[in-house]
């Protein structure tokens, strides 16, 4: 499925570079030891602006989902219906990620099920934006077969 291609910039570039090494790293506030995602300038808890990168396993659970049937995003319109799920991180359930749950048919999402992190290649285009890596990986999740 051709997701929109993320264009790394500024503070989020290390995050995208790490994905290309099959690692999921999140900002961790050095003041109050709290994970942050998406990449931010300020800690949502203490307002601090000093972070270190912390690698997480990416293991999580499906909190909720719905099914996109009429997307405004052109690149996704050929793949509808499409799951959009919210994944909570086991290491800190206050952190959540979006996922299309590849491999799970649209509308057949097992809410509450455990999921594992996978790395999905982008579908590149001609004359790719030079800020993008043609081999960029995107963080995705897959239901753990039980």
């Amino acid at each position, binding site marked *: 499925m051709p997701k929109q291609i*993320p264009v790394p910039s500024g503070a989020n570039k290390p995050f995208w570079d790490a994905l290309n090494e099959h690692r999921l790293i999140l900002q961790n506030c050095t003041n109050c030891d709290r994970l942050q995602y998406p990449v931010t300038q300020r800690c949502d808890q203490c307002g601090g602006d000093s972070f270190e990168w912390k690698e997480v396993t990416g293991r999580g659970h499906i909190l*909720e989902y719905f099914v996109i049937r009429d997307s*405004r995003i052109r690149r996704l319109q050929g793949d509808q219906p499409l799951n959009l799920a919210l994944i909570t991180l086991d290491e800190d359930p206050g952190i959540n990620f979006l996922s299309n749950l590849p491999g799970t048919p649209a509308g057949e999402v097992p809410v509450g099920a455990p999921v594992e992190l996978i790395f999905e290649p982008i579908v590149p285009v001609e004359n790719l934006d030079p800020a993008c890596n043609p081999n960029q990986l995107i963080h995705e999740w897959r239901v753990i077969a039980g």
Partner: protein
Amino acid sequence: MVSLNRNNFARTQDHPGVWEHRGEVAVTGWGQSPIDRRWDGESFDKTMGAYAMIAIRHALADAGLTLDDVDGLLTSPETRVGDTWAPRPYFDPPYDSEDGITLVSCEWIQKQMGFKNIKYMESNSPAMAGLMGHAAQAVGEGLAEVLVAWYPMGNIEGRYEQGGQNATDYARGNSVFTAPWGYQSGAQMNALMVFQEYCRKYNYPVNGGLAPFAVNQRRNGLMTPWSFYAQHEPYQITEEDYLNSRYVSEPLRVLDCDRPVIACAAFVFTTAERARDMRQKPVYVLNHATARHPGRSTMDVLAEHQSSCRRLANMMWEGSGLGPQDVDIFNPYDGYLTFTQQFLEGFQWHGVQEGEAMDFYKGDLRVEGPHPYLSSGGNNGTGRTRSAIMSDCIEQLRGQAGGMGDGVQHPGAPNPGPRQVQVRHETALFGALTPGGATFLMFGTDPMTS
């Protein structure tokens, strides 16, 4: 001195105390433009500038004022005709600006209408209802004695938000963490995720639970003479129609969504002292409060929206001196029906507690009944003006709802009209936009200043 603007007008404190201008500010006029959909792509005869001028003229006539009485102008550029809708540049030379066309600045209105006595002017206020909180605070602080605030909403050629970045191969800026998976807007998508969580937690069906609410919204909208549906599609929908409507993002149906329109509403805010001599009975502003949930991660979750709405309600009660049992008219924002229950439960209107909204929706919501919920018909029932929730509060408190409250466009309409509630109508609470970030205002027929 820093002028009052979108960043400093709001009352956001957890324990704000009674609003220092409670009852010192009144709304004494409102006006509505015509309402319709989409330009034909060739003609500019339905610009938002023209509709703003019509709405302002009606609001001033409603209050019995002239242009020279006005010393404050306030509006918002958030007309939802952004660059994600239509391709840009949208107009060929000699047009070098969209001012007066897709947005309507104070400077444009001042020049076109000939206001001569303006001493406070701000074109960058937030969308409804922040714009109205800003207006109340500006008059309360004495920046203007008679202020006109108008809010245009647009609907131009093309499909909504299918241009701009959404039509490209790339996600940029903060959207790198959301758009690749298909996420577009919090009001639609985050609220839908929370709605799913809500239904699961309280054991409600995700399909059909909102049907009675949608049907009642249309019914109220059809009792609003100027509404899009009353004017252009004057028929009632049924629960079956709702259940047969297509999914946008399942379980969100197209009839859960407000219908984009071209329209403008204008409102006259003034001091309680000046209001005494105006044409209409004053509607006093008793408080305004704003809560913005900061958001921990990619998406807010149910507990965060519930917490934010509880907090907003507590700020409103403390700032107005009123409580849930005192609110007669209740018009929370309904741009997507999937989030409105958070406001209903947060403010505990008519005793509705967390997890009870869907049962409440199965009951009698009619304006003639004991629980005239969203008596405006909201965005869903009247079209996406975002302002019906406020104009209904004014009309209900005046006893004119659904009739000739605006006094100008529908001279044959009854007064009071068919939308007038039968229960007590001395206070009114309304607000927007989403449970994750909203401003609410309390109105009353009694200024509570003594």
